[in-house]
């Protein structure tokens, strides 16, 4: 009953004209980010953070969340029409979506993707409403050792699944954690690794680093890629036929379940649910040979899983303060910029904000369905925009974003340097995601580790004498061992890298 009251209050807050406007702008910008190849949701969300600086925290977070799941929707269009995923989670949609477009069924592919995404997103949001409050209450009983262990699990998951080598993943995560150490020590207030540079006293800004690693690096990579031709396909018949509906319903139901449950696990990332949904669909299909040739289930299942995941992935963030992916880490950064720390205390201290944001997911999903079905032709036309203009627009927003956070040219320099580093990492096949997660979780991990050790007087047994903490640490170890034994499918590891 309490949850229902909070949800109603949240819906009332999210449905004000102002917040509806923010959600609509967020959905439009998010879809645009997803549609434009070369600008993924992580960089896209990061570079659009400056747009929200003058907004109240609720409006800002509604808009940024809408950008995030809008980008998850929009990535499908490029996968279907030019065989280039707008974001990594849409890679698998290329397999059958592009084939459907070549057969003149591009409209149906985009239609079922929009409908599946809507269903997956809505069901996951409803499940979030049910699951989040008790999980947040449970997390309130966690002490610093449990939080340390929990964050370690998240970091191990993203490290283990990030690339083809566990060791390189750990090195990248350690590098991210180390960069997070720059600035004032959060416990004692002493400066560390600042080398007398005043700009480093506030630490290395998360936003310039993400913009460089994802935005600038992506531009440098895009310049090297060949031009992709847009498939001319009929976009008039968006709704599937009766037979296609029959084949898609099971895929949508299974995709929703897979996306939601994998979204609950911190560190899984957006790619795995889509791969798992595709593989499951192929296994249960009576005609698996049609997969890769334009099977509608091959579009419906991963696209549904993608959006169910996108909404469910907010659960670890909102209830435990653990970002599941680099994009969610950017959202976490946006919370922190607004003076809010995601986690169980946020549910207790700012229920108005949390529930307004959750309620806005439902409104945003409806908006995205409307934007994606009738206006899909319009989005497709944007693909013909010359890449030079997209590159320059991205660079412009990167510069504004890096500068305006602290009015600092130094941050623009950090962004450029991180752009070069990100380009190098991509070229050398070294995973970027663990670095980003390490950077955002670094201060929290260090603080919980040191507070735990202060509680125990420096005795490390505090981590294995508390059952929940021990369980979480064993889970982290199991994840690492699983990664060494290469339990995750090879395609997932390669795509994640």
């Amino acid at each position, binding site marked *: 009953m309490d949850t229902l009251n909070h949800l109603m209050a949240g819906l009332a807050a999210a449905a004000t004209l102002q917040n509806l406007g923010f959600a609509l702008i967020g959905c439009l910008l998010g879809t645009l980010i997803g549609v434009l190849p070369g600008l993924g949701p992580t960089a896209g969300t990061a570079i659009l953070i400056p747009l929200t*600086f003058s907004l109240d925290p609720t409006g800002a977070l509604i808009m940024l969340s809408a950008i995030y799941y809008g980008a998850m929707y929009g990535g499908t269009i490029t996968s279907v029409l030019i065989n280039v995923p707008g974001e990594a989670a849409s890679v698998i949609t290329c397999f059958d979506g592009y084939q459907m477009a070549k057969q003149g069924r591009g409209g149906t592919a985009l239609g079922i993707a929009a409908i599946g995404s809507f269903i997956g997103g809505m069901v996951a949001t409803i499940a979030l409403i049910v699951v989040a409050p008790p999980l947040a209450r449970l997390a309130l009983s966690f002490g610093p050792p449990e939080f340390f262990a929990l964050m370690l699990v998240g970091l191990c998951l993203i490290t283990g699944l990030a690339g083809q080598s566990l060791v390189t993943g750990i090195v990248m995560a350690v590098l991210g954690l180390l960069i997070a150490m720059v600035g004032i020590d959060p416990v*004692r207030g002493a400066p*560390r690794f600042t080398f007398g540079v005043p700009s480093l006293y506030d630490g290395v800004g998360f936003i310039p680093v993400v913009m460089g690693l994802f935005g*600038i690096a992506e531009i440098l990579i895009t310049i090297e890629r060949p031009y992709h031709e847009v498939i001319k396909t009929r976009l008039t018949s968006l709704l599937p036929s009766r037979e296609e509906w029959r084949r898609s319903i099971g895929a949508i139901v299974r995709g929703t379940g897979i996306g939601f449950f994998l979204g609950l696990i911190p560190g899984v990332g957006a790619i795995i649910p889509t791969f798992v949904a595709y593989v499951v669909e192929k296994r249960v299909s009576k005609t698996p040979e049609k997969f890769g040739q334009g099977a509608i289930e091959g579009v419906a299942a991963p696209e549904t899983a993608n959006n169910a995941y996108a909404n469910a992935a907010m659960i670890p963030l909102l209830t435990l303060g653990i970002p599941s992916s680099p994009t969610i880490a950017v959202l976490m950064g946006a919370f922190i910029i607004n003076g809010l720390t995601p986690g169980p205390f946020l549910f207790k201290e700012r229920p108005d904000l949390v529930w307004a944001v959750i309620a806005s997911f439902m409104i945003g999903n409806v908006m995205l369905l409307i934007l994606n079905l009738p206006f899909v032709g319009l989005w497709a036309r944007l693909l013909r925009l010359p890449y030079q203009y997209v590159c320059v*627009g991205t660079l412009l927003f990167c510069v504004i974003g890096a500068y305006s956070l602290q009015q600092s040219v130094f941050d623009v*320099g950090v962004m450029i340097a991180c752009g070069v580093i990100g380009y190098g990492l991509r070229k050398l096949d*070294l995973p970027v995601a663990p670095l980003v997660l390490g950077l955002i979780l670094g201060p929290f991990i260090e603080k919980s*580790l040191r507070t735990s050790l*202060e509680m125990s007087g420096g005795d490390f047994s505090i981590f294995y004498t508390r059952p929940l903490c021990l369980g979480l640490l064993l889970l982290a170890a199991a994840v690492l061992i699983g990664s060494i034994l290469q339990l995750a499918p090879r395609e997932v590891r390669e795509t994640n890298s």
Partner: protein
Amino acid sequence: MRRGRIVACVVLAGIFLAALVTSLGYSLIDALGPGPGFFPFWLSLIGLTLTLAILIESVRSRETTTVNILPDRQAALQGGGVLVALAAAAALFEPLGFRLTMLLFIAGMLWMLGARSPFGIAFTAVAGSFGVFHVFLYWLKVPLPTGAFGI
């Protein structure tokens, strides 16, 4: 690829070694428990050990396939141009102001990346500099720098 990995490992090892030495300058343990140097020390040590392990593995391994990770001349020039233009824009951002800097940056970048429509370049440059400045300053209340000319 193998040579690139070796270079990356050497750079990373250097970073971790420098961090390890620097962290020894902070207190590792004090009366209250772990000090400011505790976490960075262990992180640097783990990072250094693992990087050296990758380095040894990379040096000992033989590359079975040659993967060229370097861009072609055209892409390298354009990529280098993007970075130089960004650095120049960052340097001019405050002395020249957002509008003039971005007007030059956008026009120059579009030309360098191959756009040749004078109207397209001019329109994008003006919209991206004066237009964006107006939107950010007056609508979004995000101040951007005005330079020596007051523009």
